[in-house]
């Protein structure tokens, strides 16, 4: 029992980090049909911007998050305008993969050149520093914050997609782009806005998750597979699915690390294999 209580908060925190970063990718893959391998690269840009804002500009933590999210979206605009726009919902997977992995290498190189190869600190405000006493055990206060961020992101996204005008337009554009256009929905704008949303979420996740996934130039490549796995296990495009997958995989990974650290990521991938074997389209995915 004590073991379980020891593991659960860590598992929940790790799962929420995975969720916050991967949900943007899930939206891109599910709704826009773009296998965006550069998703982690945008998360990394967010991390770098936050680090820069906090250490060099000396702004407060919430402002830094804001700068990171908006800054990353601005950085992504030329990529969207020149490159991504050509691959929404049309081109085959190979083109998408070659394009997005190219972008990833490009961003890795640039980050390495500008910020250097060492990992960059994202100093936390005093409120989130240090341990927090749960009564049962101590947990880093930051982990609680991460869990909160994950829950808020999930609820906000669900409301956005299911309950708003934008969500209706988005779903219409996704289900039948031509018909949506014929009905007066400007799909190009909807797609671009969704892209910005996905990138912004990546940046947000990159910043709040930096304690668990430290920001360094190889971030984009190192965690690429992890993010893709979350999406494929959860089912692309499904908020509920991404949440379930993140929590399940977070639990598998953390339990493995606790009980048998020398096995590395073995348990993470065992969980992936089992889930994908039983649910080939992911937990909440639809067959396309």
């Amino acid at each position, binding site marked *: 029992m*004590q*073991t379980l209580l*020891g*593991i659960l908060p*860590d598992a929940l*925190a*790790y799962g929420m980090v995975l969720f916050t970063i991967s949900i943007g990718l899930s939206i891109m893959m599910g709704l826009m049909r773009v296998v965006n391998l550069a998703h982690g690269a945008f998360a990394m840009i967010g991390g770098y911007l936050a680090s820069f804002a906090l250490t060099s500009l000396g702004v407060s933590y919430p402002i830094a998050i804001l700068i990171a999210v908006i800054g990353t979206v601005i950085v992504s605009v030329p990529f969207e305008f020149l490159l991504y726009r050509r691959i929404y919902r049309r081109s085959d997977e190979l083109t998408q993969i070659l394009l997005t992995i190219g972008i990833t290498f490009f961003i890795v190189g640039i980050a*390495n050149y500008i910020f*250097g*190869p*060492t*990992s960059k*600190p994202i*100093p936390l405000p005093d409120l989130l*520093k*240090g*341990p927090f*006493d749960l009564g049962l*055990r*101590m*947990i*880093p*206060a*930051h*982990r609680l914050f991460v869990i909160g961020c994950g829950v808020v992101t999930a609820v906000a996204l669900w409301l956005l997609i299911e309950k708003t005008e934008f969500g209706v337009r988005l779903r219409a554009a996704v289900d039948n782009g031509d018909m949506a256009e014929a009905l007066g929905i400007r799909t190009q704008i909807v797609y671009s806005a969704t892209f910005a949303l996905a990138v912004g979420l990546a940046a947000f996740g990159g910043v709040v998750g930096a*304690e*668990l*996934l*430290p920001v*360094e*130039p*190889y971030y984009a490549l*190192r965690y690429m597979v992890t993010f893709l796995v979350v999406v494929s296990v959860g089912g692309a495009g499904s908020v509920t699915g991404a949440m379930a997958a993140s929590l399940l995989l977070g639990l598998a990974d*953390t*339990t493995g*690390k*606790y009980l048998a*650290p*020398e096995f*590395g*990521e073995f348990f993470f991938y065992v969980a992936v294999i089992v889930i994908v074997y039983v649910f080939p389209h992911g937990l909440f995915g639809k067959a396309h």
Partner: protein
Amino acid sequence: MVKTLGWLCAAAAISLSVGAAQADTIKVGVIGTMSGPYALFGKNYKMGIDAWVAEHGNTVAGHTVEFVYRDEVSPNPAQSKALAQELIVKEKVQYLAGLYFTPNAMAVAPLLQEAKVPMVVLNAATSSITEKSPYIVRTSFTMFQNTVPAAKVAKQKGAKKVAIAVSDYGPGIDAETAFKKTFETEGGQVVEAIRMPLNTTDFGPIMQRIKNSGADMIFTFLPAGPPTLGFVKAYIDNGLKAGGVKLMSTGDVVTEPDLPNIGEAGLGILSTYHYAVSHDSPENKAFLALLQKGGGKLDEVTMTSVAAYDGARLIYKMIEATGGKSDPDKAIAAVKGMQWVSPRGPVSIDPDTRHITQNVYLREVEKADGKLINKEIDTFKAQPDWGLAKQ
């Protein structure tokens, strides 16, 4: 046909004369982590070597010495071996130096005897590396060398139950073995020994496990680089530091460039190591001044710069002893038993193990002039490599 032969002879003559002209430049191949997550340490190789060259010039016994750098990037034995081959065959280097990671050094070792090239290991810290070839000398440190004093200090500080957490690869296992053996001989108890995969970034579960084990001290080793910061942070943030669990490590975990990132929460962390940037000696002051003159930043200095500086000293000595000719046996014989005062303190090359014998210092993270430093508080004099030393 005759004409072709004539051309061949001419070509041979030219290549011979070119060969003779080139003999005046002696090339030294340096394999280090020049890019990637560990680039800081490769950069320090260059800073250290440049400092030596700035101090002693680039000619030895009438020969010009040229350092050629190659990028080892990550633990990748096949690539390092290929780089060493390329340096030997194409660049015709007479000496090799560098190697940050143990597996990479191990992969290069078999080439040395065949190519008659001595190698000065500037970092890789598994004891057995120098046993892999008689042409290897090492100016860095070994896990045993730094860990045995750590275990003794742990006992002195009153630790009874220790949890060991090390990176799961050669040096980590050396550190675990060395600590366990020494600490148990001293009468302590090891309650937990965790081997963490090299790519671990989330240390929360490991901290929880250590906490549940009831240990009153953690001993850890991770290779200096991004993960060490995560480990120390997890130790603090999971309440282990506040809960009175002490942290003891080798200096790799608290390298000076990482200290500002660990922050004041790191005050009081103990470590044993062979070099602290704050080491108080005229040699170290002069060395740091040289590094800064060469464009190095004080905040970026790590142990690899000292290893490289002393490594360059050995290479100059070997070139001097052989008169610039390729004679590895003579070269290695010349540095065996060599003694000098390094920026880290008095050192010597053990003639049996070809590893550097040096002081190991106990340090504590302290604040001095608004900066976090590893303050040396105790000295273990002339430590050999306890892993290789005949006992």
